[in-house]
């Protein structure tokens, strides 16, 4: 794996992670949730106040990250520096989007 391909795999993985991590909360995808009083796991779309969906959100992020890395590996085989710059720009966008959503969604009111 060349340094450029390695870079594209990493950046595409980052984009995939951030989009899936944020998308599952934004669009209420079914997520793995843990209910700590009953000590039960469940797949939920809209969690109860005690259900913790953070684990499921991380799982979605990992799935998105792995998918992104696979896409980066495929694209990186004939990637030019232009592609690298484009993926860097998308990475910055995805991270700003994820951080912004996390702050906005949970901001103390």
């Amino acid at each position, binding site marked *: 794996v060349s*340094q*450029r391909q*390695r*870079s594209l*795999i*990493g*950046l595409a*993985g*980052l984009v995939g*992670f*951030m989009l899936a*991590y944020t998308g599952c909360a934004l669009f209420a995808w079914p997520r793995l949730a*843990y209910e*700590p*009083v009953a000590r039960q796991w469940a797949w939920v779309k809209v969690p109860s*106040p*005690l259900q*913790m969906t*953070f*684990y499921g959100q*991380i799982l979605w*992020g990992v799935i998105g*990250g792995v998918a992104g890395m696979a896409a980066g590996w495929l694209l990186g085989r004939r990637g030019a*520096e232009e592609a*690298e*710059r484009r993926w*860097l720009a998308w*990475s*910055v966008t995805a*991270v700003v989007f*994820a*951080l912004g959503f*996390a*702050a906005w969604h*949970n*901001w*103390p*009111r």
Partner: protein
Amino acid sequence: MMARLLLVLHAVLGFLSMGLAVHALLWSWQRRARAVLFARLAALVTVAQVVIGLVVYPVYRVKVRHEIFDVRHADGQVPLGWLGRLFDIKEHFGLIGLVMLVLAWWLCTRGGERASRTERAAQLGAAGLGAGLIWVAGIVGVLVTSYAGLGRLQ
């Protein structure tokens, strides 16, 4: 008792990861030979720290969030509700910080000698943002714990 021990370990690893993340950033910036080592250590220590945090998280959710922060007073106000929300932001920022540190390790080359300008910008950006987010998470974590760590003493 086990949750308290894990919380202490979580805090110790947190301070360690804050230091290692800054080391990784500075060593990468200066293209020093040990940049890869510090990037690797920062990522691995932060992984361990986050995993321990995820193990303790259910205890926090019941003993602190549910029993202290989200308690509604007679006047209908939830005076400590903002702490629970701040903690949630810290959790997300900490996790995204971890992802950035793993990416910084993935992109790190020995001395940065083979990296293009774009690759170097990506690596330094990941290391810098990762370190910043880990610091934010650490400071907010200490702030929230100063109000309530794992609930009332038993």
